[in-house]
């Protein structure tokens, strides 16, 4: 096998409060597909952002063709032949295919104007070289399907003469047919000597496509192996590893009556015929890959995107949940996944955030009672051991873990009976994680019915009484805590992908 083009050694990167990567080794050779694997939060995105010049590493050395490099911008990485295709495609919907491919470096004529016909011709040649003959270079990108847009992105990357192409979960939104075509293109590129870094959640893709695989876990390097020397179970074990169960102190709570019941609930596009039961004092874990429809289900229960069909019952009574405020009245609380965008109003004060969902409780006749607001905020700080300078601190100044505690205490202030937590411990440090788990356990003890959505299998296994696995908007498996293992859960999260991969491979 050839020498590495790009080599990373001892790469570390920290963000405020989080160590995202520590001492990572990684390399890319010519004419190979190198898969990068890891759970959510394992550090894959950070690593590719370092390779593509979005972030600069705190420590470590990056060499390209044997010489040390440091990219200060995506532009510099691009100029040196490293192109990245992000999950969210960065295209201009109102411009044509050719213009998108050559955005920023269009061929010019001698008057300095865009040489329109050369550009179209070059775009056509590029697409043809990728064996794409059915894409009109003059059509608007906005009218194209996701698969075609991705092909445009690939052509765009190649227009920069990329020798290394980084693809971040390229199959996440593709149809089977498009996946198949994408694989064809990736193989074609490899045969031409391009080094492809391929990130995916789907193990099957790794076996179909990759030559080598590197696994990251919790920001650390686990191993790099030729794909031929590994197998499915081996990879899963490398990804999930073994972790301390002590972090997840779910104590057995007596289960009460069924509080929430869903029967054949559907909502386009990602909630399909979901049925579930949730008891008081129970923690119901929902596992699944990103895009499996877990948050979408939570938003249906919370009334953000009301159910289109099916029945929802609370305490055995049929209810209609048409808005978050209706959900709140029924005693449902939802702590969303994205703290900054959905969970908190970060430029506002701590006290204001804590009271935001329960303004009715700290007011009389619509008039705020600052005294009760302050009391509420102080109570939350004590109860959750929030590290803040006071109730008037601006929330954006708090650490991630403390922000998450505020997001949770905001909803506990509404005194809910059903609590939905979406990725409750993502991106926060170990100490805060343990405290949130302890809180959840205590709440369950007190009779709260909890739904916990999590991508971290150890967390799901440690905290849940019962686990639902979702895939493609459906509940595909229900497992009791006692029967579940990381391997069995991971297998049912991914098995559908395995099936469609097999189709694509034929």
């Amino acid at each position: 096998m050839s020498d590495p083009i790009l080599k990373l050694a001892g790469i570390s990167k920290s963000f405020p409060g989080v160590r995202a990567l520590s001492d990572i080794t990684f390399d890319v050779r010519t004419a190979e597909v190198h898969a990068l694997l890891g759970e959510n939060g394992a550090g894959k995105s950070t690593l590719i952002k370092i390779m593509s010049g979005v972030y600069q590493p705190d420590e470590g050395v990056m060499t390209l063709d044997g010489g040390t490099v440091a990219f200060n911008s995506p532009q510099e990485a691009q100029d040196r032949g490293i192109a990245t295709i992000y999950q969210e495609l960065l295209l201009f919907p109102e411009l044509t295919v050719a213009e998108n491919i050559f955005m920023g470096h269009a061929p010019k004529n001698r008057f300095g104007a865009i040489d329109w016909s050369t550009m179209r011709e070059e775009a056509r040649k590029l697409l043809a070289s990728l064996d794409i003959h059915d894409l009109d270079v003059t059509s608007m990108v906005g009218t194209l399907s996701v698969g075609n847009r991705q092909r445009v992105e690939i052509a765009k990357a190649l227009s920069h003469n990329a020798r290394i192409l980084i693809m971040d979960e390229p199959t996440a939104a593709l149809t089977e047919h498009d996946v198949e075509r994408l694989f064809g293109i990736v193989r074609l590129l490899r045969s031409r000597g391009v080094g492809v870094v391929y990130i995916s959640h789907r193990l099957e893709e790794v076996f179909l496509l990759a030559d080598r695989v590197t696994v990251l876990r919790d920001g650390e390097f686990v191993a790099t192996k030729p794909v031929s020397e590994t197998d499915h179970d081996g990879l899963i074990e490398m990804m999930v590893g073994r972790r301390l169960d002590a972090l997840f102190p779910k104590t057995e709570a007596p289960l009460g009556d069924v509080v929430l019941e869903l029967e054949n609930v559907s909502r386009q596009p990602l909630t399909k015929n979901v049925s579930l039961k949730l008891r008081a004092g129970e923690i119901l874990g929902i596992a699944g890959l990103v895009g499996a429809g877990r948050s979408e289900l939570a938003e249906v229960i919370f009334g953000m995107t009301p159910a289109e069909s099916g029945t929802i019952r609370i305490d055995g009574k049929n209810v209609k949940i048409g808005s978050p405020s209706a959900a709140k009245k029924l005693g449902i609380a939802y702590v969303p996944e994205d703290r900054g965008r959905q969970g908190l109003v970060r430029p506002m004060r701590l006290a204001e955030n804590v009271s935001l969902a329960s303004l009715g409780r700290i007011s009389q006749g619509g008039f705020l009672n600052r005294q009760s607001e302050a009391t509420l905020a102080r109570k939350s700080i004590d109860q959750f051991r929030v590290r803040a300078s006071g109730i008037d601190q601006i929330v954006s100044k708090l650490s991630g873990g403390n922000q998450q505690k505020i997001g949770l205490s905001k909803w506990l202030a509404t005194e809910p009976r059903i609590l939905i937590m979406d990725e409750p411990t993502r991106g926060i440090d170990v100490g805060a994680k343990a405290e949130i788990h302890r809180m959840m356990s205590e709440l369950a003890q007190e009779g709260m019915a909890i739904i916990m959505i999590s991508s971290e299998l150890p967390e799901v296994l440690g905290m849940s009484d019962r686990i639902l696995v979702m895939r493609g908007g459906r509940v595909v498996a229900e497992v009791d805590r006692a029967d579940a293992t990381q391997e069995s859960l991971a297998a049912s999260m991914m098995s559908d992908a395995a099936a469609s991969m097999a189709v694509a491979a034929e």
Partner: protein
Amino acid sequence: MAAPEATTAPAPTPRRRWVPRIALSQELVLFLAIVALFVVVGAINPRFVAERNLQSIFLGNAYIAVAAIGMSMVIISGNIDISVGSLIGVLATVSGTLAVAGVPIILSWIIPVLLSIAFTTTMGAMVAYLRIPSIVVSLGFLSILKGGLIVATGGAWINALPDGFQLAQMKPLGIPMPIYFMVILTIAAALWMRLSATGRSIYAVGGNAEAARLSGISRERTVVKVFAIHGFFVGIAALLYATQLAIIQSTVPPNLELTIITASVVGGVSILGGTGTVVGSTLAAVLLAAIGSSLIFINVSPYWLRAVQGVLILVTVLADMWRRMRQARGRGR
């Protein structure tokens, strides 16, 4: 996951795509509307299509079309300029004052255009580098310009303009000068927007600023450039406005900025930025002028004109929102 349910519709075949695209083209709709208007109103009252009226429609409004070109670019880039009416008033007065003061006529035409570019470039720099929203910057300048004009002139009109100053009244080859300007500038601007790198980057910045940044396009520089070019068109518009009559009124034409923005919006420039063409805005300016003129000929009080304009903007905007919603849904989001 590659589950088939979670995917968007497959790419439409080229044959199916092109019919709706033509049907939805704002330019075509506007063009047909203009033709229909002339046919219908002309049938009701032939004097509407008489040469004299056609000339007055085009002559009196060409400057609006020219200003709308620059405005369209500003809006496509995701900004707005509500000071444009006042700026035209000020520049017209400057031009006339220079001419009366004995400055060579050619300079009295060129200087206001240069001033205009300098002025809007300043505005663009404030928007781009100081990150003040364009609506606030232009609101402030609107007051300054409007008030400054009255302070400077005391509301007096400029007359006794020297011979040869009235550019807009000239008729080379029997066709009035404003028409040349309107047509040539529209075509030039359309080509420039379509073919030049800067022109394309305006769409990029207005459409997806983050993607533009990752493609190496500077939002700041693009915005400043857009405002500078906008200034050129405003300058020309002011010139046409200043030289169309024997006198120059030193008051700002009321609601001029609104008429210009209306032309841009009705011409298909989306206020959310990123889309639109200058051909559309020119057609819209003509359509608006023709509608205004037609009210008289079909015995509808011209006082309804503004209401018609309002309905037109509303319809255009709602159509745009509807199109966007459909597009968003088409992406399966």
